[in-house]
């Protein structure tokens, strides 16, 4: 090899030289090389442990969505008048040193007139084993099939309020599970709407510029100048009362989406205004690419990081946006539950001070939001060619 050589001397590499020699090409199959950047993204993403874990958590959450009726121990409307504001019952495994399997102790309510509070006393004498794959509250699965099978049920003649109950004696855990259905879909649908619009209008304005930009800009300006408040109020009056809860839900989602897009559109536009001056855009243009293609394939991907970040950030605002609406009387209608509704109900001092378990719905919201965020991070990294 080239040992320390004084540069003054004329050095010639002694190893034989073969210009045709190519480095051995790896044994990867063709698809390895043919991978599109999307596929590469996916491969990179898979290597990102935190992101994959987050994606897995989300998957679990979303898998719950179609089966909430089965998974929730109670129906969402099921209330128990004898257990109003009951604190969480803890799950035990051993009774007096003996393994029993998962069980709860029953408790009973009494009324403390002095403090105006319901007091629950736990009866530690007899464990009440909870049941699995059992029959419980009847429900209509997907609104089609009547059924009453549950994954877990309360003990026979007993109660199982693992997260306590609310002011009407409804099981919080079940309500959270039912709420997941609405909250998890509302975020995704809302974002889909707002992204579709934001990308479309922002893309048009940014890439085409000129009068299109001008009109879209003014549109955004007008939309943005109207604070959401009066719109919500007007809408709350306008939404027909006999819309089914599902319709209301979609109405709200769409409204949230509709209100959300201008911000994104402006960001897209300003970034595109800068990007469209880049040579590679010109190159695509000169190759004859259509405008849509240039926006979709060349401009937007270069804006991916911001989009992913925006999307993951919009999720919580969508999930919670609906709480603000219910605050103004435009939210979901009972009996439909969402995490936002649950949090809204916890929105008083009594919840903070006397019934802290009512604040529990924050936990799934945070978990979901964090999971979306970490997944977004992974996506961003995967999409970053430099990473």
């Amino acid at each position: 090899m080239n040992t320390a050589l004084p540069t003054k001397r004329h050095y010639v590499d002694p190893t034989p030289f073969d210009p045709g020699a190519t480095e051995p090409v790896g044994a990867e199959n063709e698809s390895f090389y043919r991978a599109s950047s999307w596929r590469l993204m996916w491969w990179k993403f898979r290597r990102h442990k935190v992101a994959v874990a987050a994606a897995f958590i989300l998957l679990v959450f979303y898998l719950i969505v179609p089966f909430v009726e089965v998974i929730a121990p109670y129906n969402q409307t099921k209330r128990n008048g004898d257990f109003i504001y009951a604190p969480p019952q803890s799950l035990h495994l051993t009774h007096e040193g003996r393994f029993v399997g998962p069980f709860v102790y029953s408790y009973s309510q009494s009324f403390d007139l002095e403090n105006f509070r319901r007091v629950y006393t736990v009866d530690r004498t007899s464990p009440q084993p909870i049941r699995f794959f059992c029959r419980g509250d009847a429900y209509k699965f997907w609104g089609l099939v009547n059924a009453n099978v549950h994954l877990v049920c309360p003990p026979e003649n007993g109660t199982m309020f693992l997260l306590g109950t609310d002011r009407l004696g409804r099981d919080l855990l079940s309500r959270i599970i039912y709420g997941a259905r609405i909250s998890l879909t509302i975020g995704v649908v809302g974002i889909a709407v707002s992204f579709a619009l934001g990308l479309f209008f922002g893309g048009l304005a940014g890439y085409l510029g000129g009068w299109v930009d001008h009109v879209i800009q003014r549109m955004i300006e007008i939309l943005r100048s109207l604070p959401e408040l009066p719109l919500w109020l007007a809408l709350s009056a306008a939404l027909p009362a006999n819309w089914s809860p599902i319709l209301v839900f979609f109405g709200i989602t769409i409204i949230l989406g509709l209100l959300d897009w201008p911000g994104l559109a402006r960001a897209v536009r300003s970034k595109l205004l800068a990007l469209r001056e880049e040579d590679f855009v010109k190159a695509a243009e000169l190759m004859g690419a259509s405008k849509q293609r240039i926006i979709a394939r060349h401009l937007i991907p270069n804006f991916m990081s911001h989009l992913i970040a925006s999307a993951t950030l919009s999720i919580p605002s969508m999930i919670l946006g609906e709480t603000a609406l219910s605050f103004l009387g435009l939210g979901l209608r009972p009996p439909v539950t969402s995490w936002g509704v649950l949090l809204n109900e916890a929105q008083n001092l009594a919840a903070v001070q006397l019934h802290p378990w009512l604040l529990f719905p924050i936990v799934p919201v945070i978990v979901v939001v964090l999971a979306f965020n970490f997944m977004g991070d992974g996506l961003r990294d995967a999409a970053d060619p430099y990473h």
Partner: protein
Amino acid sequence: METPLLSVRQLTVDFKADSGDFRAVDGLTFDIPKGKTVALVGESGSGKSVTAQAILQILSKKARISGGSIVFNDPATGKTADIAELRPESDAMHALRGGRIAMIFQEPMTSLSPLHTIGDQISEALIIHAHVGQAEADKRTMEVLARVGFPDPKRALRTYPFELSGGLRQRAMIAMALITRPALLIADEPTTALDVTTQAQILDLIKELQAETGMSVLLITHDLGVVANVADEVVVMYRGRVMEAGSREEIFRNAQHPYLKALIRAVPRFAMGEDERLTPIRDVKSAILANTDAPKRPQPQGPILKAEGLRKCFTLRSGWFSGKTRTIRAVNDVNLTLPAGKTLGLVGESGCGKTTVSKMIMRAMAPDSGRVLFDDGSGPRDVFGLEGSALTDYRRTVQFIFQDPFSSLNPRMTVYELLTEPLRIHDIGTPDERYERAKQLLDMVGLDKRSLRRYPHSFSGGQRQRLGIARALALEPRVLLCDEPVSALDVSVQAQILNLLKDLQDVLGLSYLFVSHNLAVVDYIADTIAVMCRGYIVEEAPKTSLFRNPMHPYTQALLAAVPDPDIDRPLDFDKLRAGRFSNPADWPEPYRLVEGEAGVMKEVEPGHKVRMGAHKAREAA
């Protein structure tokens, strides 16, 4: 023996990549003596830029110095530091970077921030290292801008990179490196975007500074002519390893290694025989060419492309609220004809409007006046009037190779996607066919299929340039507008590409508009050559007659400035300094153009036209 300024020992740089780790620099050893110029030459992708980055510790995150040392002996402080041991973000490293070791980057377009003015970016280095005030920094910036040949340094302070031609950007980059008067200048292809006269000026400047400050230079270049003219020592690299190293004399007179010999053989020379081919180290397997038969396409009666009276002015806004604007006449009354199956070479000073002309022909930019006619066999049509499918056809048949390959490649697309994108746009072939085509294209430009799944940023400058060429060829165009297509390629790969282009022309009847600073290359490939200066075509002639009998003073100056890869025929820098003839008002009669006058093209020989002042031409008539 004096300690060298920088001694690199057994330097090894590894890259981590999806397709496996690979070694870009492998046991590299060389010294840079004080005050001397060391030229680093080698095949495109052989690790020259990576070496330079390693010296500055600015390697990409994927790369790592996995062995060896880089010892820097600072002549000013007498201190010695092993750069390979320093942390990239340590203070010691910051002090070295820019201050003691400065670098000119290979791709000047992407290396400048688009948001900051040239002046800001250049003076910054000075402010950091010399601790001077803004006013002083501006003054010195103007000085160096003037020295690198900016026509109006004061205004240049406030222009943005995208307002400059490729050559001007490169000169800005050079100014940025030189302003702190470093002990070591690493110049990575500093003159690729410059015409030969400017190149000579820059080389001269570097020499001057070397004499003034005892600066050492690590010059990375492909142009053996430049090496022969300025280098003291030469290091020849191939695939990350030194093949041969020695003094200039030894290398040029006594080349030993087969690679170096092949390299010297591959240099295009003037006055090559009509059918003489360049001899690259590896030739493209002509099998690929053989099975692509020429499609039956109607041939146009006249030229396939014709530009008539193109003019373009750029308006420069000087301030925010002041309405004061300045216009730059980038292109002035340009007429060009490109016959089918022929090559038109376009040479000229950096910043004279070549790129602007090609962009207008591409309809990437609207001319202020004039028109471009395109004839695909169905009669000439104005390009700017094309609509719908006619435009799509035009886009398909006429392709453009960008001067700056990096910025013309979408950073978020893999090579596979980049190469197949044109096919997808025009909806050609099945995915499998497209894949085969992509592999074929890569083969043509001498890259292997592992490149397919890499992103543009992970290639060397020359490799990217080849990607640009491959992409332009993807659609089997009939006309190719090449804006400096081979400037970043070493002579061997360059030969390979030039041969390829020639073969394609023979087989498929392609027409080229070939913009280049390298006159030998133009001579090799072109049939007709047009010389541009300050927005004007000053001379146009078949290549034989142009090189035999250059009429215009600017053409003559240009030819005189071509560096020869022969150490026995050095450039005469003094003479070059005297007569650059780039200002129309300085041209001797009858060529002088007075302010605002366009003059006329006058035919002096059959096919040989020269621009003359209008009244002189009338007189002559």
